[in-house]
């Protein structure tokens, strides 16, 4: 029943051999230079996958040609009993030799690939010799594919000629080339030949046909199994692909590098030691925007406090200087319910929010919360007095604004 598959199973066997050679190279060539690691190279794996993919394509095509050639041969026998038989045999022979050739060469080539000793130079971590060996296998495979395609075309041309010569009237009703391709792609039998593959089963009137497995489906299945093997090998044997935690480490490292690179170029380098009060209207507005959407949930829009403390009075739990507020925003006081915001807002944004918070000092909220913490006074000293002054200025500004509003 699986007679038709004998050739396919042959290809599969070849494949398995090739793959096993590829995979076993670790042990098989362990004595040589350290090319065990070559297989874990992503480029090598990509190339290997291409090689295997092309192999499958070759196998598939060879199978199609053999089938076509057999049909052709049959027709020859039927129609022209003796003449030209030699030519057909020649075509068939060509097919066989090319496929056999390929079967013989690929394992050999694969071996050379694995065998390739350490070249001094490398391409994407893959030694020159391995790289070129693999590339030449791919080239060879492409060549074989071309030869096969040429054969197939020749065969089909003959067939078409025969069809148009003998069955010209019927040719008009021929389906479009897409449907022809589709039928071939799925190895469909023509509907009128259905009775030949009826298995004779009858379940409450349901019959069953014995159609072949669609080739692309079958080869796709093999491919997924190969994928599974390579996947497990990469992650758990060669360990050449990062597991979750390694992935995290890589991305954090990358992020840190990017950030450093960015900060080098930008003026965004503010931290709790260098932050100063930003009195510009644009900065305060930016700070206010964040405050009224995010901070207001706990501190109320006017800073009077609810879940979080009142920000308008003189009492502070963690200090009321611009640097203290910045620090509170940046690192948070998680045990008291204030989260760290450094992953949510940039240093400049934090400075803007801190400045806005500072500007709330002395305003009169609608429902001020009872004081928490201790009375905080600006310490003497250059920078501190500056910021105190700034606070006064801004307070004055707010008061003035209010006056204007009332007027």
């Amino acid at each position: 029943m699986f007679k038709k598959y004998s050739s396919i199973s042959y290809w599969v066997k070849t494949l398995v051999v090739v793959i096993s050679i590829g995979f076993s190279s670790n042990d098989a060539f362990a004595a040589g230079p350290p090319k065990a690691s070559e297989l874990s190279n992503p480029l090598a794996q990509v190339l290997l996958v291409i090689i295997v993919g092309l192999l499958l394509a070759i196998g598939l095509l060879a199978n199609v040609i053999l089938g076509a050639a057999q049909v052709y041969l049959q027709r020859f026998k039927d129609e022209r009993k003796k003449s030209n038989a030699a030519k057909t045999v020649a075509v068939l022979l060509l097919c066989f030799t090319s496929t056999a050739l390929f079967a013989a060469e690929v394992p050999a080539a694969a071996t050379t690939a694995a065998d390739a000793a350490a070249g001094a130079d490398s391409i994407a971590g893959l030694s020159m010799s391995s790289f070129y060996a693999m590339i030449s296998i791919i080239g060879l495979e492409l060549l074989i594919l071309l030869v096969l395609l040429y054969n197939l075309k020749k065969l089909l041309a003959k067939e078409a000629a025969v069809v148009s010569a003998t069955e010209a009237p019927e040719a008009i009703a021929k389906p479009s080339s897409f449907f022809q391709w589709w039928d071939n792609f799925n190895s469909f039998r023509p509907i009128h030949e259905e009775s030949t593959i009826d298995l004779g089963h009858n379940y409450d009137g349901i019959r069953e046909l014995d159609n072949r497995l669609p080739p692309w489906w079958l080869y796709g299945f093999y491919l997924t199994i190969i994928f599974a093997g390579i996947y497990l090998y990469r992650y758990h044997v060669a360990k050449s692909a990062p597991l979750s935690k390694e992935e995290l480490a890589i991305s954090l490292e990358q992020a840190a590098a990017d950030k450093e690179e960015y900060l080098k170029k930008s003026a965004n380098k503010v931290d709790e030691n260098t932050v100063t009060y930003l009195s510009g209207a644009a900065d305060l507005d930016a700070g206010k925007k964040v405050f009224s959407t995010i901070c207001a949930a706990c501190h109320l829009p006017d800073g009077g406090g609810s879940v979080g403390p009142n920000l308008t009075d003189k009492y502070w739990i963690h200090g009321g200087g611009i640097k203290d507020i910045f620090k509170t925003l940046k690192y948070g006081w998680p045990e008291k319910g204030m989260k760290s915001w450094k992953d949510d807002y940039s240093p400049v944004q934090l400075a803007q929010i801190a400045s806005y918070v500072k500007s709330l000092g002395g305003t009169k909220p609608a429902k001020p919360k009872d004081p928490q913490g201790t009375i905080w006074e600006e310490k003497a000293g250059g920078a501190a007095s500056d910021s105190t002054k700034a606070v006064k200025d801004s307070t004055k500004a707010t008061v003035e604004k209010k006056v204007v509003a009332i007027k």
Partner: protein
Amino acid sequence: MQVEKFYYDNRIVKQFAFATVLWGVVGMLAGLLIAVQIYLPAANFGLPFTTFGRVRPVHTNAVIFAFVGNGMFMGVYYSLQRLCKARMFSDALSKIHFWGWQLIIVLAAVTLLSGYTSGKEYAELEWPIDILIALIWIVFGINMFGTIIKRRESHLYVAIWFFIATWITVTMLHVVNSFELPFSWLKSYSFYAGVQDALVQWWYGHNAVAFFLTTPYLGIMYYFLPKAANRPVYSYRLSIIHFWALIFLYIWAGPHHLLYTALPDWAQSLGTVFSIMLIAPSWGGMLNGLFTLRGAWDKVREDPILKFMVVAITCYGMSTFEGPMLSLKSVNAITHFTDWTIAHVHIGALGWNGFLTFGILYWIIPKIFNTPLYSKKLATTHFWIGTIGIILYAIPMYWAGFTQALMWKQFTEEGTLKFQFLETVTHIIPMYVTRSVGGLIYLSGVFIMVYNLVKTVKSGSLIADEAAEAPALTKAETHGKQYWHRWIEARPIQMLLFSLILVAIGGALEMVPTFLIKSNIPTIASVKPYTPLELQGRDIYIREGCYLCHSQMVRPFRDEVARYGEYSKAGEFVYDHPFQWGSKRTGPDLARIGGKYPDSWHFNHMLEPQSMSPGSIMPSYTWLFDNKIDTAITPAKIRAMQTLGVPYPAGYDKVANADLMQQANLIRINLKIEKLITPANAEIVALIAYLQRVGTDIKSAPKPTTAAAVN
């Protein structure tokens, strides 16, 4: 040869068909309600039993077990009798099966809405119902095998292979996943904890999709599609290969629901590769279905039944290709926890299960009522409306999932998160609205079907007992060389055993090492059992279905570590019976919620979420402020946990309530300072205690000092 006369039982088919329609409407209405609640919190009505967390399990359970379940039984009871050329084994068992299953559904709805849930997705039902399910399922099994044994057909058709595999595998899944320790008449704790519970649960959850939503429906497709199209099945050998490959490979794929979690890496990788290998076996079913229609496509143009079936099979093909793609880590990193998953499952539920069920209903009802369908035109209308509904449902959800995932992952150049979680939610609300419109359209199509079927039923009369005849079964003779697979097709018991062995392999090889090898779950010394108050709070968390919108699993991604904190470790969950990792983030992850906000924040937030997070779509939980903690049951809970291996000191159950009240009073005082008044024994206090504990144990672990590292 003696020809025997017998009668097919159509009454039971009719009953299951009507139940299918009824529960389909109920399940979809529940779905519509929760779809609206997502963008309109007021639609939760402020009542416990109408709030999202309780209605969503009703929706999923109703659609899976009530709608598809009854649909499956309808298909099996109709096709099995005809494929075996025999009446069902026992009318009494058929009746018990039908009414028992409906009883389960009603009990499920009542208990779920009352908050009795095991907290494990798609297995939410509590222990007494679990036992009832097992009993009724066994009744179904006896009835099915009885029929198969007394059949008048020598060999079993492929549909029956799928029925057999379904029955045995669902039995295994249900029994293993439902291991739980009752501590009251309606409540229990999962036998497994943390990582192990997660693995068992998703082994079950994934294969509930496989063996409750897929294999039985493939089986009924194999009967009704060739019947409706009047075409032979495309390929017998494709049936064989895809059947055995499917049931063997499916069972391994569960861990793909747990990629990037605290599950050991090797188990995650197995989940991925077996999912990829599943593509071809799954597609085997689609190809055999679609290729069977070869030569009948002109009929598809005319016949709404075939239209439904073609779209159903296409949706099956789409979601079984999408599933493996979602199992690739790089794709999963984007789609998991988002609405992408919701879109994916609804392609399956609305397209595959829904449309196949509709097609079969349109086929069966006229048959058993011996009358033509009332209106073919209305059926075609239903088809187009349903298709538009599916498209309008799925596309916004794919879009929402993809958009939200990218927003979560976006950083500014300064290296800070670009979006607050809530911003990513409010951004996709238009998509949620469109989705609910899609759902409404789909449901209106179902109402058209109900009208059409009612009219059909009224114009015909039920052939309760349909006469048939067939020769008695003689010893199967083999003429010449037979296909090797014919051997097992004549032996149902061997087929059952082979199926069981095949499906047991995958589960066993994944679970046994995770349970037995210690290194898979490294313990963390600072992780301690929950206090009695926290335990009570955790049970409230489970009762209200918080896990349906909030995950408790920080994956090792840069954005999640920045947004939530340290990524979750396997050792953190060893006392979690059941685990609460969740599968969807409609709200933010809660794995590190402990200590992030003050008690007063949680108090205000549970009372009115919008006060603390303006624009939040979370419903209010006002009843938690009135309900009192059920302290009478604390000792039983502690004892159950002790039995499950949680190291409370001996005799702790007697003093647990004293500890509980002490901790509750501290929280009460803490809240009072903030002018928030609550009695110490209000449920909200317990919930706050639990939330403040989650994910904090690991922070108290002694950290290796940097000095030591320098030295």
